[in-house]
């Protein structure tokens, strides 16, 4: 079996072969510029520019790989600002011993994700670290998006609706179950997906409706609500009955004592919008596969300023506190 060896980082023939025959040929011979920089032409004055590094165990999981995660994560960071994602870089840090076959599968999933999102991978870098000095593969992606409408940030006021494009907690729960070989975790899958088409579609129809949006990755939906209410004159209230959460996610979360509202998502955007547009936004979301379970999950209130909280099924309220550190499973 072919594996990554130190020679792949030597700067010589082995490295060139890896880059040309494996990386470039998979990620895009037509888009990747092998010179010191990629030269790009954009038709606008403003661009959005972002970067993110990806480390995850396991590197392949139900619903995606570290590669699709790296593309979709960066695409989503651009999209939630209202930008149209255009170009992506791909820097790989590979650990000695990584099977080339695994690398190929990850690169293919990157390419597929890029095609789906409509972004071009234009430049990159490859480094090799000795065995034991890395966790098989790390990926950094930077992305450039063109700002073709106004930036989607407007003052939030009580009465605004809180919307999510689908089921909550899928990615974090699936990864936690895999990491711990939970035998009772069948049916869990990451929601890893690019959201730019869905978001662009909303902006196209309702250019002024969105007050705020963010992809709900680490820390989950509850952490985003804590971010927007911090120091604010309003609170964010969720309705437990309205939350779209898969039964499998609920089950595993209950057993582990984990709250899906704090679990990571990789294909979910939380939108705060003027309530008069809420139903129309949901209707647009539902036309996209990433939005088929979209729902209004809450409302901005003046009742408990600075707090994220939830009205439970039975009508009581409970606080959704700021997460201190990672959630640990409980005893019984």
């Amino acid at each position, binding site marked *: 079996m072919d594996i990554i060896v130190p020679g792949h980082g030597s700067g010589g023939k082995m490295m060139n072969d890896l880059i040309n025959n494996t990386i470039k040929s998979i990620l895009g011979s037509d888009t990747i510029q092998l010179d010191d920089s990629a030269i790009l032409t954009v038709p606008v004055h403003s661009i959005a520019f972002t970067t993110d590094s990806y480390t995850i165990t396991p590197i392949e999981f139900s619903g995606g790989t570290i590669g699709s995660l790296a593309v979709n994560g960066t695409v989503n960071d651009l999209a939630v600002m209202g930008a149209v994602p255009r170009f992506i870089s791909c820097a790989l840090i590979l650990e000695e011993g990584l099977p080339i076959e695994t690398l190929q599968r990850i690169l293919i999933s990157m390419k597929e994700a890029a095609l789906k999102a409509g972004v071009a991978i234009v430049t990159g870098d490859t480094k090799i670290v000795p065995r034991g000095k890395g966790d098989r593969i790390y990926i950094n992606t930077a992305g450039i998006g063109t700002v073709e409408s106004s930036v989607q940030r407007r003052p939030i006021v009580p009465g605004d609706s809180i919307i999510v494009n689908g089921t909550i907690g899928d990615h974090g729960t699936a990864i936690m179950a895999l990491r*711990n070989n*939970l035998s009772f975790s069948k049916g869990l899958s990451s929601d890893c997906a690019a959201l730019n088409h869905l978001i662009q579609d909303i902006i196209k129809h309702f250019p002024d409706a969105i007050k705020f949006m963010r992809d709900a990755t680490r820390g989950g939906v509850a952490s985003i609500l804590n971010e927007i209410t911090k120091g604010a004159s309003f609170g964010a209230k969720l309705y437990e009955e309205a939350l779209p959460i898969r039964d499998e996610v609920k089950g595993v979360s209950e057993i*582990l*004592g984990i709250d899906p509202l704090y679990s990571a998502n990789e294909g979910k955007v939380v939108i705060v919008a003027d309530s008069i547009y809420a139903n129309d936004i949901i209707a647009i979301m539902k036309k996209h596969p990433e939005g088929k379970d979209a729902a209004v999950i809450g409302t901005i209130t003046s009742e*408990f300023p600075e*707090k994220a909280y*939830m*009205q*439970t*099924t*039975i*009508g*009581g*309220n*409970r*606080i959704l*506190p700021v997460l*201190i*550190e990672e959630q*640990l*499973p*409980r*005893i*019984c």
Partner: protein
Amino acid sequence: MDIKKEAVLLSQYTLQTPVAIMEVCGTHTTEFFRTGVKDIFPQGLRLIDGPGCPVCVTSNDYLDTAIAIGWQYDCIIATFGDMMKVPSSYSSLSKEKSKGLTVEVVYSPMDAVQLAADNPDKKIVFLSIGFETTAPAEAVCVLEAKKRNIKNFFILPGNKLTVPAVKVLLDSGEVNIDGFILPGHVSAIIGKKAWNFIATDYGKPAVVVGFEDHDLIRGTLLLLNLITHANPNVVNEYTRVVRDDGNPKALEILYSVFKKGDAIWRGIGTIPESGLLLNDDHAYFDALQQFTPEVPPPKEHPGCRCGELLRGVIIPTDCPLFGKACNPEHAIGPCMVSSEGPCSAYYKYGRK
């Protein structure tokens, strides 16, 4: 009846005098908050937290011993995640792990047995804590290790029994409790009738309750009715899981491995016959039989009132350290870090 209608009944319940009820189980502590049921309590109803969080009632000495065994005998400490950040006298498992002690978080005690099977050249010490609910699973693990002839799996016995602790609270007369919300999962093992003494010997009502919102509402309503009608009775709300006699099979397995013995409870002290120790047939698996670590003298943290809290004498917000010197990032007592700890629940959900 519709759950929402019952919720209205509870929120509008008229109490002639203030009523104090105790939830014995740590999961109930959290669920009363999480489901919002505590938020709709009628005026005059007070919920007092009992000694039902297994991590919280574990004494400092237990963790000190675990850490000492880990270092001095080069063992892998296997534990439920809840224990990681609990302060010991001088440190915590999490801090010791950062210093290089091998600590593995497991989701089921059977994972610890497998860890031993997979690492035959390493000694695995599983921190066996929990109440009657988890003890049968821990007994099964010891039996499994015996069957598979796994010689490098040991447990540090720390399991406790809930009934003796409730008796101690009732005997002490330190707290005036009008009635009890009894633990559903524990009762599934020991049976509803194990609690009948609360009514017959102490003249107090109690209800065995499940963990869903409707269980909590219905259970609290049942208990309030018993209290207001001065009807000392033990009632089972959680009939879909709890039987009168409990689970005789689980109890049989439990007592084929363990025997009752004295146990030290944080804040309460030694309670006779309230702990589970390995019986003579399974003494080989007892880490305390295998190892004789030097353990530094246990030390309580100055100002920490977890002890009084676990006796029901105070609620978390009565402790001057609560939310100030003691918070989830820098916990002084275990009640702030365990997911079932009352302080953790109050800190997370109780502040408005």
